């Protein structure tokens, strides 16, 4: 959606929400709800463990969660399919305009939603305004008992108390793949790398790639009849497509 303003002194183009560059397709029909994506994401991105009490109180910090509901009254209950929910990397993200410190910004290079930890002052407005509720706040400084500190990923910042964080589509892996491709003088090939959740998924329910390339695997999956976006009616232009109903 590009709006052209024609005011006598001002002539500018405001790009309001653009479709992303990287995207994901999640096939709910083959997801087994094994939570491997949740574990892999926590390992890759140094997501802290908050303990049972805090987790039960709604302070778990996972960047991806597997949602599941029961339908109907007991005993006639039916389980809905598992639905992994992560940051949808909206093209028109509600979290971005509300941050007073510009800590929640849209990157031009990757067309992703970034959280700048250093700049975050912790007003938590972005999390309130996120319709998907996928942002995690560092309520405390969480301890990592030995030997857990040894497995921290050196490519990812360890966050301190008082800042917001969320899924980055494993931007460190995107950058590494781009660097390798650039040094070899080529483009990143489709399927050359995957974020931790997609890599760990034993059912291959999560597929990652370029959604601006119509020939990529993820674009082909997203175009299928089973595809839909979460809370599409809000106009957030999510980069994640869910597949259901096959």
């Amino acid at each position, binding site marked *: 959606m590009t709006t052209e303003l024609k005011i006598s002194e001002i002539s500018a183009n405001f790009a309001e929400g653009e479709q992303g560059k990287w995207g994901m397709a999640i096939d709910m029909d083959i997801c087994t709800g094994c939570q491997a994506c949740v574990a892999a994401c926590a390992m890759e991105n140094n997501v802290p463990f908050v303990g049972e009490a805090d987790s039960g109180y709604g302070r778990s910090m996972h960047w991806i969660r597997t949602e599941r509901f029961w339908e109907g009254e007991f005993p006639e209950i039916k389980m809905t399919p598992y639905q992994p929910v992560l940051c949808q990397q909206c093209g028109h993200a509600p979290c971005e305009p509300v941050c007073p410190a510009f800590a929640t910004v849209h990157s031009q290079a990757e067309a992703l939603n970034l959280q700048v930890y250093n700049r975050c002052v912790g007003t*938590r407005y972005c999390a309130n305004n996120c*319709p998907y*509720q996928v942002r995690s706040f*560092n309520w405390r400084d969480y301890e990592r008992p030995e030997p857990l500190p040894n497995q921290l990923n050196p490519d990812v910042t360890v966050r301190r108390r008082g800042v917001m964080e969320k899924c980055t589509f494993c931007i460190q892996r995107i950058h590494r793949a781009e660097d390798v491709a650039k040094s070899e003088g080529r483009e990143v090939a489709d399927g050359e790398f995957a974020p931790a959740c997609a890599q760990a998924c034993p059912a291959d329910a999560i597929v990652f790639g370029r959604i601006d390339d119509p020939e990529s695997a993820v674009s082909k999956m997203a175009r299928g009849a089973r595809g839909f976006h979460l809370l599409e009616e809000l106009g957030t232009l999510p980069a994640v497509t869910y597949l259901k109903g096959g």
Partner: protein
Amino acid sequence: MASTATHHDHEQDHIAHLREKHLMLDPLPRGRMNEMVMESMHDTSWKFWVVFGILSVIVAVFLFGAWGYMIANGLGVAGVNRPSYWGIFLVNTVFWIGISHAGTFISAILRVFKAEFRRPFTRAAELMTTFGLVQAGFSIFMHMGRVWLSYWLMPIPNQRGLWPNFHSPLSWDLLAITTYLLSSTMYLFLPLIPDLAMARDRTPDGTWQKTFYRVLALGFRGTEGEWTHLRHAMNIFAFAIIPVMFSVHTIVSWDCAAATRPGWNSTIFGPYFVVGALHSGMGAVAMVLAVVQSRMKHMKYFIRGEHFDALGMLMLLVSMTWAYFFFNDYMVQWYGGDKWTQQLLHFHEAGPLGWMWFAMLIFNVAIPWATLWNKKWRSNPWLLFGVGLLINFGMWFERYIIIPISLTINRMPFTWRMYTPGVEIYLGIGTVAFFILLYMGASRLIPLIPVWEVQEGQMAHSLKKYGRETVVTISELE
């Protein structure tokens, strides 16, 4: 002849009755009145210091102690969670900004409309504005995850070119509240200058109070030129601060209204919040006046039944306006038919904290309507104190329903979860104690009654006899 004597007696009774009822018709010599105001500041009993001491301890432990504990350990010690990312901190912020509104409303709007009953209590109300905003500032800074970096929200030029985001309603908030705090403090200060000069002239040399008054009175001597300038400045401020006041709470409401949350994105929120602010603020003014009248020396002369009567009428009017906006907001949201909003409205009334929703309506509407229609009842300070207290509870509940309870319901039912307050309860109590503490401190240093305004009003009012009838006349002084 007998009938003439009776008529004369009646006349005297009538005049005495008018004098007793109306401060403006009951003048005292200026020297005596100044003395009374000075005595009201200096007449401090041991009970005052006991309360002052207790409140200081509460402020030290609950406000600064608990805040320090929270800064050191993170917001985990508070009750905020997913999805209620904002809890009592923001409830208190909105609440205190609401309290601060009545001061300006009473002082500026009634001054602009030349409502005579305002004269003795404009300052008491203006002080609430400034001190209420201080508490609002505390509450909003407390809720920040990294409050030590809060200066990043200011547009401070720096070599890295980092700038606050002026798209964010929180940036608008910061500007609006800062503007309001500065302008309301100046507006408090301007009418204070003649009274500070009065206090300076009546304070013995060599005391620190003398220095305090001398510095703040800015060498005011009461010349014609000084009065002209002062009136001019006050007039500008009285008119200019009214739109500022309306804008502040409208902008605060946009924190909610500009967000994509069910129950929040309501277009009526601006005026609804402003009226809500006036509702709680009027109640708070009534409470403060009742305490001041009963606890401070000579205050029974300055604050009378007529003032509570007038305040009671205002409270009733504001209560009716609030009820209209509440109904309007509810209707529009319900009629919108959004399924999440429907869920939320049901959750408000029938959820685990449904009692709060009903208490809000009883305290904000039913009780004021049931009591304030009666002139005799609303002239009673302690009844008005009680109604004001209930209204403040009701308005606090309203904000609690709008912020943490509405945040409980969102578009992802998987994350629905109740909010249980933690350390923020103590922080809230701390802000209440700090407000009272500041007010008590100010009552020992600042003339709580604008003496010159009362004297000016009394000069303008006179009883004149037209034929056999004694009537009140008011002349235009300004």
